[in-house]
Each structure stands twice: as C-alpha cells, then as structure tokens.
C-alpha cells in the first residue's frame, strides 16, 4: 500500500450535530462489540471450564485418562495429539511454504506468480470438511498403501514407525494440516518478503551476488522475524483446525506411540464428544480442553502478529 496519511483523512473532531454524534457512537459500539465478543468468548470458556479445573486442578492438563464412566478427565493425550499433528504439519509446510513465498516474491515472472498466487488462495478457500472427506477416502488410503506401508516394512523395527499402516492417524492428519496451512504461510511470508527494502537486494546484487545469494543472504535475514511469525500463524491454524483432522485422525484415546497411530487432538475430541457428553463435569471438561486450546492459539497469534509487524509494520501504517 502506498497511501500516505493524507491530511484531514480522519473525520474525528468534526463539528457534528446530533445525527453525527449518533452515527459516530453507532460505529463505536460496533467496534467495541468486537472487543467485547473476544473477551466474552474467553470469559465464557473460562467460567464453563471452572468445574473441571476445580475438580482436577492442574492435573487436568497432565492427566492421562479420559474416562466418562469413572468421571476422571485428563487432557494430556489430546494435548500431545494436537502438538504432534501440528508439528508434523509445520515441519512439512514451513520449508515448502517458505520456498514458495520466495519464488512468488523474488524469482517468478509475473505471468507465473499471478496464477500461482491465485491458486494458492483457492487452496485456502476449500472448506475443511471437503479436505476431510478427501482425506479419509483418498489421501488416507493412498498414504497407507504407499509411504506408510513402505516405512513400516523397512523401518518397522524402530518403535515410532511400527504399527499398522491404516492411513488413518497422526501422519495423515499432519499431512492434511500441512496442505491446509501452506496458504497461510505463503501469503504472509510473501507479504513480509515483499516489504524488504529494494536497497537490500541492490546492495547484494552490486557485490556480484547471484539471485539466490541475494535472497538467502540479504532478503531472508532482513525478513527473518516476519517469516517466523508467518510460520507461527500457520502453526496456530493447525492447532485449531477441526473437521479435516477429526475425519482422518481416527479415535485414539491414549498418547500415540508411533507416527501412524490413531490419536485425537483437542479440537477433534471436542467435535466428536461434545454432543454426547452429559452436562456437568463431562461437558465442563470438554470446555476446559477448549480453554487450553484458546489460550495456546491466542498466545501464538499475538506473538506471531508482533513478529510480522516488526518487519512489515503494523497494518494500515505502511
């Protein structure tokens, strides 16, 4: 964006009769609504989960057993499942997304970068449930017969690669998530890279650097914190993604032992159990899971935004 702050752009402090004041206050209420809604979501989840936290304390987070019959609820298997699927996703999506962002921002001719950017944006538009359907009937069986079967056959003696290659479980969930977070990483990393001043590149090129050397030695170091922010935003999206994961992760109630095990993430556990849960402690425990997820995602988002702003500047300011 190239708009400078134009003089008189803001209408604040205009003369204003009653209608003006009414109008201005109306918009203020709408703006405040966003803030209030955000606080209300956090507060409501906190209040609704207090029964579970009251009953189990912090051991709710470290508990290994989720047993509605015994009324014992521990979140650890789902917390671990969430972290593992998201890690798999980020490990795959971060390098591919970053290379793509570099390609689109620095290397590609316009007639290639425009359609590619467009297609990657479409990737972000595909509904989660459609990814899930595709994942459970197409991608899962495909991975099960190829990568998973091969790995189990040749490396099955390593514990984390043991286990039946069903194509349903952590690994497939991680791959689906990787596909879903690539657009996030690409679009933000591209924006950050594009905001690196041209002088950085010119100086490097003047020293006789190749295009790639310019990118890795001048552009990327300059954009580093923003790129980390882009990856964290992708991670945040992976943590909270629900439907696609729910459909391909199977139904494992324990901490997964291997890469191909079935598992549950926090979001998938809530999605599959919430409507069957009896009100009271069980529902409260599920909401407590949600509260943990909320705290993690908000923290990640805040950190990521700050990192991106460090390079690209806060929104509406450039």
């Amino acid at each position, binding site marked *: *964006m190239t708009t400078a702050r*134009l*003089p*008189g*752009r803001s*209408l604040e402090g*205009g003369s*204003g009769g009653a*209608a003006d004041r009414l109008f*201005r206050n*109306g*918009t*203020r209420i*709408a*703006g405040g609504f966003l803030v209030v809604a*955000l606080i209300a*979501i956090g507060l*409501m*989840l906190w209040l*609704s989960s207090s029964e579970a936290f009251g009953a189990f304390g912090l051991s709710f987070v470290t508990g290994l057993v989720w047993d509605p019959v015994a009324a014992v609820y521990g979140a650890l298997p789902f917390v671990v499942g969430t972290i593992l699927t998201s890690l798999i996703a980020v490990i795959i999506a971060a390098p591919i*997304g970053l*290379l*793509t962002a570099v*390609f689109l*921002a620095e290397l590609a001719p316009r007639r290639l970068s*425009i359609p*590619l950017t467009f297609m*990657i*944006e*479409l*990737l972000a*538009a595909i*509904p*989660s*449930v459609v*990814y*899930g*359907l*595709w994942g459970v*009937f*197409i991608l899962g069986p495909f991975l099960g017969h190829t990568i998973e079967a091969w790995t189990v056959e040749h490396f099955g003696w390593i514990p984390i690669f043991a286990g039946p290659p069903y194509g349903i479980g952590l690994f497939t969930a991680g791959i689906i998530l990787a596909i879903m977070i690539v657009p996030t990483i690409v679009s933000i990393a591209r924006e950050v890279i594009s905001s690196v001043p*041209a002088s950085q*590149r010119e100086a490097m*090129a*003047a020293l006789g*650097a*190749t295009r*790639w050397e310019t990118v890795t030695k001048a552009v990327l170091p300059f954009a580093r914190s923003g790129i980390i922010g882009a990856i964290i935003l992708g991670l945040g*999206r992976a*943590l*909270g993604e*629900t439907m696609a994961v729910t459909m391909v992760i199977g139904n494992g109630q324990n901490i997964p032992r291997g890469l191909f095990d079935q598992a549950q993430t926090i979001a998938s556990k809530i*999605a599959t159990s*919430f409507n069957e849960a009896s009100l009271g402690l069980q529902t409260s425990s*599920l*909401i407590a899971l*949600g509260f943990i*997820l909320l705290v993690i995602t908000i923290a990640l*988002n*805040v950190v990521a935004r700050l990192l991106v702003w460090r390079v690209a500047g806060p929104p509406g300011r450039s």
Partner: protein
Amino acid sequence: MAVMAPTIKPSIAARLQRSRSDRRRAVFDRTMRTVALLAALICVVPLGAVILFVVINGAPALNLDLLTKTPKALGTGGGAATAILGSLQMIPLAAVLAVPIGIAAAVYVAEFSGSRSARIVRFAADVMVGIPSILVGIFVFTLLVLPFHQFNAFAGSVALALLMIPVVMRTSEEILRLVPGSLREASLALGIPMWRTVLSVVLRTGLSGILTGVMLAVARAFGETAPLLFTALGSRLVNVGDFGRPMDSLPVFVYTNARAPITALNQQAWGAALLLLLIVLTINVAVRARSFRRNVS
C-alpha cells in the same frame, strides 16, 4: 523485483581465477531457483487433487435427487434438500447480522477512532480470526443453546456471524483506507454532515471492495462445519423458517454422511461436497478475478 547484477568485465586473469567458483555458484543458483519453483508447484498439487477427486466421486451423486429430495429416516436414498435449504437460510441471517456490524466497526477504525482504540479493535479482530471456529461453537452453545435446552438454527447463524464479522471488518477497513481524503474534504466542504459523507461518499466509493470482502466471508461461512455442530446441530427434517429448532446445513450433511458406514450415504457426501466446492470456488473465483482486473487496469 527485477534487480540484475550489473555486468562488469573483469580482467582475463581474474576471470580465469574465479571462473570455477563462479560456475559452482551459478549452478547452485539455478538449482535452488528450480527447487523453489518445484515447491510452488507442490503447493498447488493438492488443489488439483482435491478438485479432481471431488468431481470424479461427486459428479455421479450430484443429481436431481440430491438437490430435491429430503433424507430418508432410515437407510439409503433421499437427498440433501434439507441441508441446502438450511444453508440458504442460516447464511443470509448470519450475513444480515455480521455485515452491518463488520462495516460499522471498519468505519469506526478507519474514520473516527484515535489510533489507540483503532489498534485495539483491529487487534481484537485479528485475534478473533485466529480463534478456532469450534471454540466459537462452544461459546454460542453456552450462550444460546444451553439456556433454551434446544439446539437451534438461530444459534448457528450467530456462530457463523461471529466468524464473519472480523473478516468483513478487516477487508472493509483496508478498502476505506484507500479512499482518498480529498473526497471526504470535498464532501464536508459542501456542508454535508459527517454521517452523510461516510455513507454516501466514503462507503459508496469503497462499495465494490467491501462487497468483495462480504462475498469472501459468505463463501467461508458456507463451508464452516465446526461452529454448527453444537448450535444448529443438523437435522433430517425439513426446517423452513423455524430458527428455534435444529437445522441441517451442507457442510454438516457432508460430515455426517461421510462418517456413516453406508456406501450410498458416503456417495451423497461426495455429491454434497461437490456442490459445496462449486459454491465456494465460484464465489472465490468470481470475486477475486473481478478485484484482480480492477487492480491491473
């Protein structure tokens, strides 16, 4: 960014001395650029794969039955008419709730607020975009389902609206920011009150861009499943106009039928997924192509 290294002719000796390492650097440069190209291509492979398989599996199932029949209470047969009707009711209501609030909040941030409160509202919107949609579902469940002991379509619309508001707000705000200040000044100088200036000049100028944001939010709402699971729930019964009762929607229909252990229902899920994909991609392509053309010309 077309920054070319200036070509300087070094002396022959220097050239000979450096040629080997230069060649290696050139090869490395070309290799890595190819790798970057490959990465970009890998990114779009899933797009093709998803569309391809949804079309292959969904096309046979996307027939008149799917569009017009209601689900059978038991077994196979029937269609997704209930779900289609449900989506077509809940999403307009969600849009009616979300669009005015989103645009008004954008007006507040772009036109009226001091930079501090603008930053707070903008930040809240950014954080809200990042909140997992299933948590919004839980929130609305405790707010609008629990007190009435009844899953209801209104709660579904509210959940969708909560997801749409920050999207509408952020895109509208970006657009309002592009409206030149001189237009506002001209209007105010004519003695037109501030509220008329915003409505008839500023918003009017940014209208097509704002519509783009609204349509993208609508497309997103069409595909949202998680926030509906605990609010509108889903239903096998036709529900027209009764927002106090459960209502089916296309994404929930895809989800429940994909999980059913019956092949015929799985096929219906593919058909409905194709319909959903057609809706979402059509909106996206139409809207983005339009705004793209505007940016180029």
